[in-house]
């Protein structure tokens, strides 16, 4: 086993490409070290990307925000501009684990761990976030929902590293929200979760919306039917009821130690309805 701390993306990509054994990228380590401890992975090479220039920064540009791959989630909550623009994304990121885990974990790690229950992913999918990827063949940018392909699997090729998550600049009267269900008040993995991002016009009518659900399918799902239900309405009670039903219907969960199929289907709808209510109220305030 080898531990390397490259200082540039090129160096990091080179290390990963040149390695013949199992490789692991280390940012926050809150998933990787748990897997190592449990004996589920024994990487031959660990590439710690925290010393790479810019990967620990949140940058605000004319296009929006760029969140470096090694930025701990706690830092998202401390960035007032980001919180103002993307409250749903930040609240999702700040729900991952404890304060201790917050000091380490990253949204890119959360995405690449490819758990269907990842907290930040439904919020990122609803937000239309993109992943900036650097690899042996250069740079490419894809929608975040295209990164996880199945539980524990991603579409990244050998040697590819996500260096940042990109969030667009928001239009006026637009906001997002994220809610998850857990049995305790903290420290749990989401049993189901919902991220909603929407934009309204001056009259309060929804003009566009994205609704994403977590932990109800092998990967986070974007419920287009739910978005269609919202658009053109003022998110009244009847609309929200339809949204809830659509989200429950779109859910294809499993029974496991964290919840049952019936529970997940029902509560997915409730979470989506409540998140939509919050997002709508927030959009009106902007």
């Amino acid at each position, binding site marked *: *086993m*080898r*531990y390397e*701390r490259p200082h540039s993306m090129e160096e990091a990509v080179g290390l990963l490409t040149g390695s013949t054994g199992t490789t692991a990228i*280390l940012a*926050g*380590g*809150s998933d990787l*070290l*748990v897997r*190592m*401890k*449990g004996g589920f992975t*024994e990487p031959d090479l*660990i590439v*710690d990307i*925290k010393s790479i220039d810019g990967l620990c920064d949140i940058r605000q540009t004319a296009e929006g925000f760029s969140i470096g791959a090694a930025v*701990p989630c*706690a830092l998202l909550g401390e960035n007032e501009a980001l919180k103002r623009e993307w409250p749903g994304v930040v609240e999702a990121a700040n729900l991952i*684990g*404890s*304060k*201790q*885990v917050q*000091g*380490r974990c990253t949204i890119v790690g959360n995405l690449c761990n490819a758990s269907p229950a990842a907290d930040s992913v439904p919020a990122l999918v609803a937000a239309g976030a993109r992943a900036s990827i650097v690899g042996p063949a250069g740079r490419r940018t894809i929608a975040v929902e295209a990164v996880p392909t199945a539980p524990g699997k991603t579409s990244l090729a050998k040697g590819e590293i996500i260096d940042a998550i990109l969030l667009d600049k928001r239009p006026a009267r637009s906001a997002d929200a994220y809610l998850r269900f857990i049995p305790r*008040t*903290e*420290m749990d993995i989401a049993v189901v979760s919902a991220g909603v991002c929407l934009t309204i016009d001056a009259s309060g009518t929804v003009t566009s919306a994205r609704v994403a659900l977590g932990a109800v399918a092998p990967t986070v799902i974007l419920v287009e039917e739910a978005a269609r239900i919202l658009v053109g309405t003022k998110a009244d009670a009847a609309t929200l009821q339809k949204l809830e039903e659509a989200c429950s219907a779109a859910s294809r969960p499993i029974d496991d130690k964290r919840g049952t199929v019936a529970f997940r289907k029902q509560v997915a709808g409730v979470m989506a309805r409540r998140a939509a209510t919050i997002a709508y109220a927030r959009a009106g305030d902007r």
Partner: protein
Amino acid sequence: MAGVAVSTTINGDDVEFLCQPDETLLDVLRDRLGLTGAKEGCGTGDCGACSIILDDRLVCSCLVLGAEAQGRRVETIEGMAQGDKLHPLQQKFLEHAALQCGICTPGFLIAAKDLLAKNPDPTEEEIRFGLAGNLCRCTGYDKIVRAVQDAASVMKGA
């Protein structure tokens, strides 16, 4: 497996050590440096008993590699008192009997110190959520929360 040479600062002292690439900072502190105040309750970041402060951030030392400490500042429970003078949190934990078995106490003290550094006047709810990453099985948290409240008021007055 080649050892990694690490230079770091622990509780203000310069420290150098050699560790394996997959060795956690918790194991380094406990097994190589004799700093056994941080405890391993789970090894997976779920109990907070191994809490330390790494460059002003509260972390579980079981989820940090020893190699990652290179060039950084580590604060552990052993550095909390100044000489023979206890930190107000330590004093208040004693006065309020905020510990029974005491295994979680170092982690709670470190987490509470970090909490009060970032929020000197927390509400009860903020304390409870701020300390939710630290498990205690003995106290029901009641006396821990009271000790932190009391310490916060003492520290504000100081």
